[in-house]
Structures are given as C-alpha cells and as structure tokens.
C-alpha cells in the first residue's frame, strides 16, 4: 500500500506520524543517530523558569523490566532554553512540542505565554505531574479542580495546542482527564512515570538518591494500556500514549486502546533507533491488515459485550 495515512492531529497541531520522543528521554545529542525530520514531533526535555540543579545521585536504577528515575528536572532555565535549545531544532520540518514544568499555576501560564511566541514551537505539553510547591508537594495532576484551573489559565494566554501530561498516581484518572478537557486541553498525555521505590538489600539504602523515583519501561506498559482505555471511555480528545513502549507492537497496542499518538522514552536508552523502527513496524502492520489511515485504528479494541 503506497498511500498509508499516518498523519494525526492534536488540536491545531498536525503531526506527519504518531511517533515522538517522551520528554527527558531525547535531546539534540542524538542528532547523529537518525533524521529528526522522520519524527512526528520533537519534544525537548522539560524546561523550568529558573535554573534547577536536580536531585541527589544515584538518579536512576535498573529494575526488572524497567528503570526508576528521579532526575529532578535539572534545567538551565527558560532564557537559556529560548536562546540555546530551541534554535537547534529550527532546521527540521518537524513540529516541536515544548514541555513545561512549573511550581505554580501562574508560573505555568507565564512560561506558556513566553514560549508561545517562539516561532519554532508548535505545541506545549504541561507537565502537571510534577510536584506543586504550593500544594505541599502534591502533583497538580492529582487534583481535578487545580488541573482545570491550570489548563484554563494557560489556554487564556496562548493559542498553542495544549497537552496535559497526566500522572498515573491517582485514584481516578478519568476525573482528571475530564477536568483537563473542560479546562480546554487539546490533548492528554497518558501518562508520566509511576511512583516507585527500590532498596539495595546489602547496603539497606534506597537505590535512588531521592528515595522515591518514577518507574518506566516495559514493566508498566499494561498499566498504561489500561489507563488509555479508561481515559478513552470518557473523552474524545486526542491521547498520547506514553509508558513502556519498546517496539511497534506496543505502539499498536496503545493505539488500539485509544491513543492517537505515541511517545517513546526509556526505549531510546536501550535502542536509540527505536522510534524509527517503531514507525517502520507500524507501516508494516497497516499494510498487512490493509489499514489505510492510522486514525482508523484508534480505540478499535474488540471488547466482548
């Protein structure tokens, strides 16, 4: 099939294909490995308004089927990002989604407004899964009302497509997803890492300097598939599936669960070419099953009644 249709839309944001990196697992440092023009979107590491030193080491540790990380959004601050990070990507014809992390609702809005003016930015992902300093360290995305207020405030200051990156560490992700949709979110990222912990039994110390870390990798994929399925049941806005996608089969599974696009994170560490291989695998799958448009697969899980 020559005419495979892979392009997807998230709000006004048009992607030539559904594959993009997850924030924090991709950078310009990878440019010698593959052509960034082949990606659906470019997602640089989350940026904070002020420089941040990040968390204590060790910041990563390996577990069965995945890894824990607690990097702490080490960042050189927004001015450096605007001057040095974004311009690196101007040479590509791939839309760039800027991932933002902030300590307060007002800071999210302020940063979104500034970043929106950059001509190479095509969308904004709000990392509402990071701890809220105003709310005793609880993530914004754990509170439906706060999530709603946050998205609404950001939407008021920008015309960019807004994606809310949800936390899986909640009782009902559906409630948060609806709050974000009502606030005006153009898309939902399902999801950030899951809070986890690992202990070295010989030293009796936590394996992560920050004690707790977020788990990623294939170990969490079935949970993410479930979360996508649950979110898809309550909303029709685009979902970006994120969490444990290692290969094209995982990507197709998330699309069948209800995802419109896919982010690849940890897999880039194991196989830096994985995004390109996933894209090729999706095309083969579509050809095999005679699917002309990837959008026709979204949420097409055959659930027995």
């Amino acid at each position: 099939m020559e005419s495979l249709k892979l392009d997807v839309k998230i709000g006004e944001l048009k992607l030539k294909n559904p594959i993009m990196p997850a924030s924090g697992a991709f950078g310009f440092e990878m440019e010698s490995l593959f052509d960034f023009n082949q990606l659906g979107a470019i997602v640089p590491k989350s940026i904070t308004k002020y420089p941040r030193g990040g968390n204590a080491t060790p910041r990563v540790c390996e577990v069965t089927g995945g890894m824990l990380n607690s990097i702490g959004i080490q960042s050189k601050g927004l001015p450096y990002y605007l001057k040095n990070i974004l311009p690196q990507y101007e040479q590509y014809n791939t839309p760039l989604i800027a991932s933002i992390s902030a300590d307060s609702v007002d800071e999210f809005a302020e940063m979104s407004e500034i970043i929106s003016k950059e001509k190479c930015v095509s969308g904004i992902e709000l990392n509402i899964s990071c701890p809220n300093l105003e709310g005793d360290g609880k993530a914004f995305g754990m509170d439906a009302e706060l999530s709603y207020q946050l998205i609404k405030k950001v939407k008021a200051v920008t015309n960019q497509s807004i994606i809310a990156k949800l936390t899986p560490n909640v009782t009902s992700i559906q409630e948060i997803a609806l709050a974000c949709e009502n606030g005006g979110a153009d898309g939902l990222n399902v999801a950030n890492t899951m809070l986890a912990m690992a202990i070295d039994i010989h030293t009796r110390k936590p394996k992560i300097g920050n004690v707790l870390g977020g788990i990623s990798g294939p170990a969490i994929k079935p949970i993410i598939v479930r979360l996508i399925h649950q979110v898809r049941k309550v909303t029709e806005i685009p979902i970006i599936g994120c969490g444990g996608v290692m290969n094209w089969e995982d990507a197709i599974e998330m699309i069948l669960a209800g995802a419109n696009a896919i982010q690849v994170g940890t897999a880039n560490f194991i196989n830096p070419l994985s995004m390109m291989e996933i894209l090729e695998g999706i095309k083969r799958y579509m050809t095999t099953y005679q699917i002309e448009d990837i959008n026709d697969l979204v949420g097409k899980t055959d659930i027995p009644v």
Partner: protein
Amino acid sequence: MKVNKLEVLSNVQVSERYWHMKLEASSILEPVKPGQFFNIKCAEADSPFLRRPFSIYRMNKAEKTIEFLYLMKGQGTFKLTDVVAGEKVDMLGPLGEGFTLGKTWDTVLLLARGVGIATLAALAQEAVEKHVKCIAILSARTNNDLLAAEMLQGLGVQVIKVTEEDGTSDVSNVHRLIEQLLIENDIKATFTCGSKRLSKLLQKISKNHGLPGQIALEEHMGCAMGVCYACVCDIKEENGINSVRVCKEGPVFNLEKVVLG
C-alpha cells in the same frame, strides 16, 4: 556516535575476575580517543535492562580492532562473558570526552586502580605512540588483578605495582611513591582512574606541585548520550559549582575542578 554492531573476535577470561574482549571495528569511522567509552548491550534479552558503559582498553588502528578489559562484577558484565567469537555485540559510541595529551608533556604519571587500569592503558598506548615517557602506578587487590601490567611494560611504560596482597597499596605508601617519582622525573601531567581515595590524593599532590591533571570518572548511566541527566557530577568553575553530565562533558575531567566529595 552511532549504533555499531561489531563482530566479536575473542572474549576470554584473562584472570580470576577479569575478561578481555576484542572486536572487529572497521565500521567505526570516527576517531576513538583514550578515555572515551561505548555503551554496550550486554545481552540480547531484556535482562539486564540497561546498557553498560565500558571504556576503551586498546585501539588497534592498523588491524581495525577495538579491545575492552572488563571486571566481571554484576548482571551486565556476567552476561557479557557469555558472548563468543563470531557473535555480534550492539555498541553505542564512541561516547564522551577523552583524555588530552598536552604538546609539551614529555613525561606523564598515571595512577590507576582496579578496572581503571583498563581506561588508563588506552592513554598509555597513545602516549607511547607520541614518544611521551609514561610512568604508571597500578593498584589492585591482588597481583592476579594487575593483568594489564605486562602489556604496558611491553609498550615501554615504567610500571609500579601496589596491592593489598603485598601490603603496598595504602594511600600513604602511594603518596610516598608519587613524591619520590616527582623528584626522580620531570613529570608534566598526571592522570587517574578507578579510585576515589587515590584520586583525592593525586588531586592534592598535583595541586601542590602545580601539575595539570585529568581524571576519568565512573558512573552508573541511563542513556549515556547526554539526554537524561542521570550521571552527573559537581565541577568547580569560576561561577561556582556546576552539575555536569559524566557521559557528555566527561567522563574525563580536569582533576583540579572535580569535586570528589
């Protein structure tokens, strides 16, 4: 940097705890510097999950091969010992910043401990090629662990061995040794890898004698490409202490600037 699938020419145990792997490397076109490393997928399966970083032990430009000397320590290196000649190994690299040999440095001192010896062996090889006189203090638990000693001696490196086995590896003894070597030789720069204690010692001595120094740091890594910010260390700079990536800005750093804690 690229993903290389290199054919293994040999992978053999060379002492009680150490293994040596040689690979065909004609597909690696970019220069590989001593101190640089490859992030190696140690097994085909998902376990261990992450790659493991290995510094280069030897590069043979004429025969286009690359060698690694590694300590069988954890799950990754244990799996790597299963690889046999003829198989291919997935190696991302070369990665990081390597050592630099100053043009006027005609005599250098290397201080290596354990598997750090492999990292500095690559530098010794380059130094010898550039007709730089190389003096190396190699420290290990046992003489059996000092397997690179003979290779270095064969290159013409002056090797001094210290071990726990012989009771010669304590910091104060190494301190005396270095001071003596500094009197007997016109050492222009120092290099170290493999021990925090010895690095601190060399940092102090190098500072006292006004000698430039370089250190190759070891760290558990996530991506090893500079994107994840997992492997960071503190570096003293004019504007204060900065957190930098071991895999990208390093693993080789100016010895004077590294905060060794």
